[in-house]
């Protein structure tokens, strides 16, 4: 769940009233751009490099929405032979299929597979190890 903090810090000023007081807007919050609907959104974490050429690296946090109807080209979370997997949903010759980046695992038997949700965005930390310290230790990591 997204914890919403008070978005607009109330300006308590002891001296002169700030001339900006009448013009305050809520500060930007990245969650608005990442999560369309918190009640249908779940999070997963990518492990391994099965989706590297689609731009998803190991360690990325996947934002997954269950409300979307899957269509060709969507990156999805699917439950394949006992495991949650991240795959590209494609339609090949009128038939649905799932593939990873190399195309070496192509799942065609969709009756065995359930699509759990659609990946709407990924979150990736960019800090090198040397900067992952203190408050910054957990930027986009679990």
């Amino acid at each position: 769940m997204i914890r919403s903090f008070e978005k607009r810090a109330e300006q308590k000023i002891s001296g002169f009233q700030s001339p900006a007081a009448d013009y305050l807007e809520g500060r930007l919050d990245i969650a608005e751009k990442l999560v369309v609907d918190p009640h249908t959104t779940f999070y997963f974490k990518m492990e391994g490099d099965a989706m590297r050429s689609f731009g998803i690296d190991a360690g990325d946090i996947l934002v997954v929405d269950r409300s979307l109807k899957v269509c060709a080209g969507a990156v999805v979370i699917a439950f394949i032979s006992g495991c949650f997997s991240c795959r590209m949903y494609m339609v090949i010759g009128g038939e649905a299929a799932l593939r990873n980046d190399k195309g070496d695992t192509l799942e065609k038997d969709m009756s065995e597979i359930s699509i759990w949700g659609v990946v709407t965005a990924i979150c990736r930390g960019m800090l090198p190890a040397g900067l992952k310290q203190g408050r910054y230790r957990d930027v986009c990591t679990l």
Partner: protein
Amino acid sequence: MFALCDCNNFYASAERLFRPELNGLPIVVLSNNDGCVIARSEEAKACGIKMGDPEFLVRDLIKKFDIQVFSSNYVLYGDMSERVMHNLARWFPRLDVYSIDEAFGWLGGVSDLATYVPRIRKSVVRNSGIPVSIGVAPSKTLAKLANKLAKKNNGVMVLDTDEKITAAVHDFPVHDLWGVGRQYYKKFEELKIETAGQLRDMPEMWFKQHMTIIGQRMWNELWGRPAIPIDAVRESTKGVTVSRSFRNYIEQPDILAEAVTLYATRLAEKLRAQGLRCLYLQVFLYTNENREDHPQHFPSHTHKLLIASNNTSDLVKIAVTVSARLFKYGMKYRKAGVIATGLVPESELQLNIFSAHDGGKKDRVSEVLDKLNLAYGRGTLRMATEGYEKKWRLKHEFLSKGYTTRWTDIIKVK
């Protein structure tokens, strides 16, 4: 028209959403402390597991049918419930959440229910991942009845005509009716009333005489005349309780103080969330009455506060002091609880002429406590008497993860 939306085998369904390999397999969820079965998947019902069965009695069945067992993960169920309810609320002009897995919706002004209701169901099931059933009828009692029928009818049952209602009540078992308690079973038996249809055909006077005003309402409701409004006011709370069993027996007063501190903390939080203060605080302890070889002790004491309070430090202090007095060496305590009664709204604080009121400061501390624990997770800031090791904490050997509430618990994909 009213709708009753109900999650199918809610706890079991919530567990399965994150373990799809268990679809089609029997699973059960155990109560706090892994005591009894409180939820079953359809497959587990078919294995002969009953609601409320103690875990140790069905252990053989569990082994025989390879039933998957879960401890109750209320963190997960609470979040999944919120998702279901929010998704439902988008479809109803009014929604009254009735319990963790049920809600009454009001469908005033909606035409074409035959297509609208299946659409609600489809959307909520997809968005939340939890299967729901929806029963629709002109009254709440009938909606509840329709919901039971929906479970066997692809999850939707709309009783929008007199013919459909009459057919539905005709062979609906009277014991399954909403609002029919055990106290009426005998009466029904004497009169050979077995179905809701037969009950409905009784004269109105009979309901008035034998089932008071509630019966009269039921009679109207069964005939499709709503007598219970959508936002029927819940009876105002008379008491708030926090009570739990311990993992092992507690035989030391300092360990007991830890447990009681946690319960009183929770109680104070609950009171504040409801905007209430309590004037009486009852503390009780139980030994295990099933063990005849143990000495038994069921002490209880109710403390009267000078000024009604709901701040953590007051309630913890009282609870710990009282529990220390109740405690007797040589007893093996199995369970403890705290009950707040004499509840008054926060806004109506009555002071005491003989006692100074320093509640304001403590109330502010509690407010900060609530805010911090909301932002950083429950128990981030707590009373020191709660201790660190908490060996007495509930047993939950089969607890699943906080898939939707803890970053460290989100599912990893390949």
